[in-house]
């Protein structure tokens, strides 16, 4: 179940912290003693959503596992910017092997821990979208299918950013990348069938599949923490905007992620054992255009030679998501529960 937002405390549970909430209702990120799994001094670009997402997710995992976490990381920006010799930013045990094998390496780590009777130590595998939906897909599917005790997290920035912003199977239609340039009659990436890894993961009937964005920390942390309560293969797909690759302002990273969700382009939901168990409803429905306009990778849809036809097709994708997952909640807001407010005083 998606965590219900705590309301009526000014920022309720939308902001990172809230001095009005009890400690256990606050996020891990609001804790001055959080792990900072990935520490300062890393070389991610300004405003990198992936650096942020990784800290969010791993710090939550660390809290959930009482600090007993080991991580396996695929090649990609996250790996490169965090561990250029002789410096590492990681504060958690961390292993990087290759681009396409992180899920299998994680399986190996989990197997070692199991055989050594150290099942208190939990394994988190992580990769970019390339390392997850493309080159790592085979090993990931194998890990799912065997139900290995690994939480795998994909930091989806919708492209191969580390190699200079090329297309991945997670690059959305019409987006410009270095290998899907904004030229020709169908500029940007193709309108393919998409490779929707969360749904593919669900098809493995694994214990837990969830999507999240860096724009909703409470939701993200809840999902990581919930995943950590379960055993077996689990998958969380986190949307992490990349200012460099998307051509968005470094200050807009969270905003862009929020609009991805609020427009319906990136559905946020949870599934257990192959069934969707909850969705994060859209709170302020936004036309996709508002989302697209913040990113230069879609600049060719606007400007001198606008392509409203393509924008419409993208809107259709969003609408389809909204329909598929029931992202728009028609019920009116409940009347404030004042007792809930009162509780907090004493």
């Amino acid at each position, binding site marked *: 179940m998606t965590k219900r937002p705590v309301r009526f405390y000014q920022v309720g549970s939308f902001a990172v912290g809230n001095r009005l909430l009890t400690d256990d209702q606050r996020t891990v990120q609001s804790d001055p003693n959080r792990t900072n799994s990935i520490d300062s001094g890393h070389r991610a670009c300004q405003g990198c959503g992936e650096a942020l997402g990784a800290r969010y997710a791993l710090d939550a995992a660390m809290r959930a596992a009482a600090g*007993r976490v080991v991580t396996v990381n695929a090649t990609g920006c996250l790996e490169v910017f965090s561990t250029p010799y002789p410096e*590492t930013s990681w*504060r958690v045990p*961390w292993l990087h092997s290759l681009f396409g*094998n992180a899920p*299998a*390496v994680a*399986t190996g*780590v989990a197997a070692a821990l199991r055989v050594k009777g150290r099942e208190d130590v939990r394994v988190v595998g992580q990769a970019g979208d390339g390392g997850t939906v493309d080159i790592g897909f085979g090993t990931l599917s194998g890990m799912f299918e065997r139900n290995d005790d690994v939480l795998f997290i994909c930091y989806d920035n919708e492209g191969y950013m580390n190699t200079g912003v090329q297309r991945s199977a997670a690059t959305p239609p019409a987006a410009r990348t270095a290998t899907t340039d904004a030229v020709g009659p169908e500029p940007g990436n193709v309108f393919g069938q998409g490779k929707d890894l969360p749904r593919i993961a669900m098809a493995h009937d694994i214990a837990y599949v969830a999507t999240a964005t860096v724009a909703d920390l409470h939701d993200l942390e809840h999902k990581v923490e919930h995943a950590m309560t379960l055993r077996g293969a689990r998958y969380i797909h986190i949307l992490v905007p990349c200012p460099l690759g998307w051509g968005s302002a470094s200050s807009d990273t969270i905003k862009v992620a929020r609009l991805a969700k609020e427009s319906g382009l990136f559905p946020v939901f949870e599934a257990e054992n192959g069934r969707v168990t909850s969705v994060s409803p859209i709170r302020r429905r936004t036309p996709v255009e508002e989302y697209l306009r913040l990113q230069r990778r879609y600049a060719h849809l606007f400007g001198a030679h606008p392509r409203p036809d393509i924008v419409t097709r993208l809107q259709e994708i969003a609408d389809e998501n909204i329909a598929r997952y029931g992202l728009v909640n028609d019920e009116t807001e409940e009347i404030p529960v004042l007792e809930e407010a009162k509780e907090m005083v004493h």
Partner: protein
Amino acid sequence: MLRQIEGSRAVAETVALCRPEVVCAYPISPQTHIIEAVGVMVKSGRLSPCEYINVESEFAAMSVSIGASAAGARAYTATASQGLLFMLEAVYNASGLGLPIVMTLANRAIGAPINIWNDHGDAMAARDAGWIQLFAETNQEAADLHVQAFRLAEELSVPVMVCMDGFILTHAVEGVDLMTQEEVDSFLPPYEPRQVLDPDDPVSIGAMVGPEAFEEVRYLAHLRQLDALALIPTIAESFATLTGRDSGGLVHPYRTDDAEVIVVALGSVLGTIKDAVDARRARGERIGVLGITTFRPFPRDGVRDALAGASRVVVVEKAFSVGGEGVVLTDVAMAVGGRDVTLHSVIAGLGGRPITQRALESVLERASRGDLERLTFLDLDEAAVSRERSRIAAARRTGPSAENVLYDRATQGSRVAQEQS
């Protein structure tokens, strides 16, 4: 305990005695019998504690081994041929990370054309991967090498590949003296990793290293391999003390003391070569054999010393660097560099072609007569080759040579049969 046992089985039993904690492999002939047998032992609880993981590819198998080893478990896997190539990126990675994984390579040719039979093309493809490569001559040695491999790997934090000829060894039933658990335990201490993923002592393993330190990292890996050259004989000696068997080590000279001609080879073919050499010795030829057990690191000094008295060296090898020459020859040449020795490379047994004593002897005969070329392909069907070459010269769309040669063989065969009838 001496048992008549299939080679694969002997290896599996011995590996089990080494108490691997994570075994992960992907089936490919001729390695299958090994991993099946280990699998049964894990499943039945005979090998415990051990995690046996069925993965979706060799790439995953090596990757799982990497993860397991980095997390402090003794990891074992086995593969062959295409499987080795499919995991090659991870093979390099394992050595780069200094993870003491032990892998059996049931040597098999590499396609295309696809071929399941034995040669050393696979091992040679991974020659520079940073692994220690040991070649077994017999199933006894194959079994013994695994025990030594774990100890070697773990002492140095370097992965070790034990090569045994596919089918010829893996599927051959012969007498093998299997060690006892006590013997193995006394020889092989528990795995004490040099680095481990541990929440109590977190480190980052697998950093990105730029020009400022990459060369040093590689050089350190090289030095570690040189350390292995010193350690391998020591381990072999203590193994001999324990078992009385001369298994492992760097090289195995055979009747080389006064030899003018020395035949060099790796793996099971040494048996056939020794028979041929014995026959020639009986006829008074001063001929000997040098078996190379440790191919990587290459025991340059050991080879040089063993070949010191020879004026002619014939390297019989089951792999070939297309466009170059014999792979082993290159290393042997380096070892005897500066000396006046005539070197021959005899490429034999590719894709499982039997290396007969007769064929060998005819080559050695030519060698002793002094009319053996530098590079010879044993038993080459010259007619088939020239037919295909003229076909290629004549027409553009000739189709794949492999099929053509096979077709020729078949039709040729029936024509011969018709002619005889």
